């Protein structure tokens, strides 16, 4: 088939109308690029058909272009919205900075608070320390006193004088250890009840014939002395000892109604 026959066959008209199979159309498209005569013929057929279409159109739809472009724009707008979002990430350094500031402030505040509470605690501990030191000192003193007493009890030849409870306090028992060399008397008054306010125990040395009481001292600060062992001077040749409850400051002679304990010194062998 030469070019002219090809053009005259009517295939090109069907090609432009779209009435051929895809394979036939591809073949003609190839020929069209190879032969300018075929291309020119196709363009003229196309032009005639376009003219015919235009003639049938009720009017020129040129105003519809704006509406179409608007629709295309609306479709396109859905894309940049997604792209725009990542801009938010640019402020990361600022956020980190602020976060660091806040954390630092919280940390400083916590440290300050901690420091304050530690100081308070330290003060409390210091006070307690002083108290404990005082207590240790007291215990040490008490322990020393006890050692001293023990030493005395061991070292000396003491006369033991048991004093028995009298009418007013039958169950009470007081021991007096009398160091005749040093003229001291140790009164172990553990059994005596605490004296009522304004009253004090007074210790008497007695000679029996005739019965003469001599005051050897008061059991001062009775309630404060834990050991309840009192040391009093006794230079008398005592034959007996007694303890009475007297008004504060003591009396010159014993109040016999308030005689708590009484005991005689056993004759030396």
């Amino acid at each position: 088939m030469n070019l002219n026959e090809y053009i005259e066959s009517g295939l090109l008209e069907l090609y432009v109308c779209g009435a051929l199979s895809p394979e036939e159309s591809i073949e003609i498209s190839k020929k069209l690029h190879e032969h300018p005569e075929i291309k020119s013929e196709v363009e003229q057929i196309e032009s005639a058909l376009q003219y015919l279409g235009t003639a049938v159109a009720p009017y020129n739809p040129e105003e519809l272009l704006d509406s179409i472009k608007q629709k295309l724009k609306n479709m396109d707008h859905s894309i940049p919205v997604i792209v725009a979002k990542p801009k938010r990430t640019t402020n990361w350094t600022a956020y980190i900075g602020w976060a660091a500031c806040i954390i630092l402030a919280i940390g400083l505040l916590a440290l300050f608070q901690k420091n304050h509470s530690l100081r308070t605690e330290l003060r409390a501990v210091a006070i307690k320390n002083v108290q404990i030191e005082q207590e240790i000192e007291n215990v040490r003193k008490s322990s020393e006193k006890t050692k001293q007493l023990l030493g005395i009890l061991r070292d000396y030849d003491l006369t033991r004088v048991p004093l028995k409870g009298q009418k007013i306090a039958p169950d009470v028992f007081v021991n007096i250890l009398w160091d005749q060399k040093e003229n001291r008397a140790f009164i172990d008054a553990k059994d005596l009840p605490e004296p009522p306010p304004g009253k004090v125990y007074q210790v008497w040395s007695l000679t029996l014939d005739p019965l003469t009481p001599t005051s050897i001292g008061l059991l001062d600060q009775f309630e404060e002395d834990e050991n309840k062992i009192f040391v009093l001077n006794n230079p008398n040749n005592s034959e007996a000892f007694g303890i009475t409850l007297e008004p504060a400051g003591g009396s010159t002679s014993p109040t016999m109604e308030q005689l708590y304990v009484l005991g005689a010194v056993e004759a030396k062998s």
Partner: protein
Amino acid sequence: MYIFNQRELNYMQPDALILELQSKNLKAFEQIYNLYSENIFGVIFAIVQHEKISEEILQDVFIKVWNNAEKYSPTKGRFFTWLLNIARNAAIDEIRSKSFKKSNQNYNASFYVDILEEKSSFSSKIDAIGIKKYINTLKPFCKKIIDLLYFKGFTQKEASEKLEIPLGTVKTQNRNCLNSLREILIEK
């Protein structure tokens, strides 16, 4: 607004413009629209014969052209033929749709020639009175074969069955009829 010249419309396919369209150039799209919208509108109207519906279809067709432009390849056929297929398919889908059948119960497919007869207002770009006069000089057979192959999108085989003529005759008769049309246009 870009106004195409008759020479361009008559003798060439705007290949450069099509490439620009395929790379999503909106200006190229506008020029393509100006080149093809009126004749494609004519084809759509010849099928649905309803102005508002034709407008809707035309918009859909050109949105499709924008979205699917890269699917067109000159190795497969003419750009105009590609456009023609999209438009005819969209228009035929519409007249087959339930909503169209409901609202256009008295729809009766007619020739483009009848449409030309009924036209009262004419396109600015062509002398419709002139073309109508000359089209009327076409043989009735020519009017019919052009209607089927061009406006209704029949294949060669479908047209031969519809017109009850051999396949080869469809080809040659269509050629003869279109030649008569081209003569009319050259005269003008």
